[in-house]
């Protein structure tokens, strides 16, 4: 929890209000001490393709006892530029993100891949910088968390709003798994839903062949990797595939759709938060099946 003193300082510089009015507003708040403020880093894919994941994430973060802020100054984590060797763009985008989330106690990301970029790689882009910028980047990285690990490890969440009933399987996306060690958190959250039966697929930790621009640049190799992944997921005989990364999910869902496999794909946040009004990824609006 934040101390009231910290809150005053922060609001003071953000709003330009005098400390007297801020102090007055604190006095009016009944739920003192104040909730921490979590900035939602939406991710470019969720923003463009699947806002429902963003709303699900916001709902889960709020339910964990935080207020949610969505800074408008964010765009993307910069990973497409970084992994294409464009350090200048990655750095510029990184700094823009750091500044956009300056007022937040946490930066929460519904993607292991983008979270790893912000937490592990963005600071490296400022390694050879003047100490102030480097310190700013390091302090920012400290506050970055992937959504499911944030809920479990930072907020101690043991119950979720979701009421989904059925068998599901979970794909461990590579960056989150290997760079951030995200494996227990999503499983813990799913086990908190009494109606959900998690069936582990063979090679749940194997790459799906997405790899960002890799899928577009080397489609044949990507497809060879993806075909194995989809076969493994289908063999789990569950109607629904969950994962924590929309990139991998769009890849897997795209293949299921092309091959007319009746396998639905959703971001884990949608199930945890009961944001299930939109059809599964890549399925038409009139999609009738429950998942």
């Amino acid at each position, binding site marked *: 929890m934040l101390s009231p003193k910290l809150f005053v300082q922060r609001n003071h510089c953000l709003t330009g209000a005098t400390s007297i009015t801020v102090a007055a507003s604190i006095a009016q708040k009944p739920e003192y001490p104040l909730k921490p403020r979590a900035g939602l880093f939406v991710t470019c894919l969720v923003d463009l393709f699947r806002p429902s994941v963003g709303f699900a994430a916001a709902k889960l973060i709020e339910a964990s006892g935080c207020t949610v802020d*969505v800074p408008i100054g964010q765009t993307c984590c910069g990973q497409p530029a970084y*992994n294409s060797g*464009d350090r200048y763009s990655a750095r510029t985008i990184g700094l823009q993100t750091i500044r956009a989330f300056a007022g937040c106690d946490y930066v929460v990301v519904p993607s292991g891949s983008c979270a790893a970029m912000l937490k592990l790689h963005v600071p490296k882009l400022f390694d050879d910088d003047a100490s102030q910028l480097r310190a700013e980047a390091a302090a920012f990285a400290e506050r970055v968390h992937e959504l499911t690990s944030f809920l479990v490890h930072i907020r101690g969440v043991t119950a979720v709003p979701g009421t989904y009933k059925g068998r599901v399987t979970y794909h461990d996306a590579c960056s989150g798994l290997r760079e951030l060690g995200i494996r227990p958190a999503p499983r813990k959250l799913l086990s908190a839903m009494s109606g959900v039966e998690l069936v582990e697929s063979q090679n749940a930790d194997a790459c799906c062949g997405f790899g960002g621009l890799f*899928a577009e*640049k080397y489609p044949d190799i990507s497809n060879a990797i993806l075909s194995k992944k989809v076969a493994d997921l289908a063999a789990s005989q569950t109607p629904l595939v969950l994962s924590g990364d929309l990139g991998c999910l769009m890849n897997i869902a795209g293949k299921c*759709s092309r091959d007319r496999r009746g396998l639905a794909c959703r971001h884990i946040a949608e199930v945890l938060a009961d944001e299930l009004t939109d059809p599964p990824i*890549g399925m038409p609006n009139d999609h009738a099946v429950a998942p």
Partner: protein
Amino acid sequence: MSAGPRDFKANAATAIADAGLQRALAGLPGGLVAQRTAAVARCPEFEALRDQGRDIRDHTLANLDLYLEQFETNAKHAGSHVHWAATATEACKIIADICAFANAELVVKGKSMVSEEIGLNAHLQRGGLEVVETDLGEYIIQNRGETPSHIIAPAIHLTQADVEADFRRLHDHLQKARVFHDPADLVAEARAILREKFLAADVGITGANFLISETGSSIIVTNEGNGDLTQILPKTHIVVASIEKVVPTLNDAATLLKLLARSATGQDMTAYTTFATGPRRAGDLDGPEACHIVIVDNGRSEMLAGDMREALRCIRCGACMNHCPVYNAIGGHAYGWVYPGPIGAVLTPGLLGLEQAAHLPNASTFCGACETVCPVKIPLVKLMRGWRTAGHECNGGAWPLAAWSFAARRPRLYHGSARFAAAILGAIGRSSGAFHWLPFARGWTRHRDLAAPQGRTFQQLWSETKRGVPR
């Protein structure tokens, strides 16, 4: 089959369409990968060993000049001749000269990747020598006129049936009706044939898994014993090794050997771990009369001085490729040069030049599986990204990415464009839910559909519902 690394994309497409290759590759997860997993499980200190292995390699690389000179002194003291080769051409010439000095006609070889790298066999054969590979896998592919597709399992792209057919064709002096029940029968036949070569050879050439600085020894690890015969029976033994193979002490080598066998084949130790220190001494029962050690640079000094130094930690176990989804999909030949897989994607641009090998570091999903198994913790993803950065600095990026980056650095422009794209693509695609074809995502839609956006961006919806509402 393989054209060079420039033709990577075409090579990969051919590999994916090759049913025989795909059958052979399908054995990897249950083979080398499963064996490694089991071996690591039997070795509780494996993670600590990896740290030690990394530290030994880093220390050696940081003091490489010192340890190489010490190695030379001690090797000479043991009676070996030490030769330094700056380039592949120099190395080949030195080795050919040694063979000429020994009046050699027949050369037997143990498995050596650096000899592949410098093109040694072709060079010696052009000089009129008969060169016979004695590692079973190398023997098989030499007879087919192929190159290794894996650094420790050179014939992994072939099935048992392929090898049987080759042996029947090649060893046509043997009984036609003979039966091959299992791989052991193939091994027995190759052994009988190779035994004659060992006894007749004038020169034996081996690589080295390690060179020991404090003793001037070379180490080879094998499972067939062919390496031992290669370095003991002929009158002249030539070791060819690259500069980074040196380690300071026998103790250091012991640590690295524990990592090597477990990572490579899932063995606690290989069947043979053989130390060679100089030629036969007075009173020795066997051993060569002369021992030459050819130490090859061939571009490594430059890598040592640059950002790719960590790649020189490699002890050539092959675990990175065994665990790589890309290697598992296309095999080793598609990479187009000697070193395939993630380590190849880092070494090849360093040794051949980025222009030749630009595809290799790009053709990775960055899944990171290679890094989690590397026995000396080479940050392979970081190094591949380093080559991408070098490429971007030389050639700039593709224009669609540059346009995207331009917008991503400008939030207002970005959010406006995203709204526009979400609206258009959403309107067209929502009824079916996904696109089967899109002009700017032709690679993507070649094998899979692209989910259509929901219609409005998250930022747009959030602004309308939540933002501006006083909290």
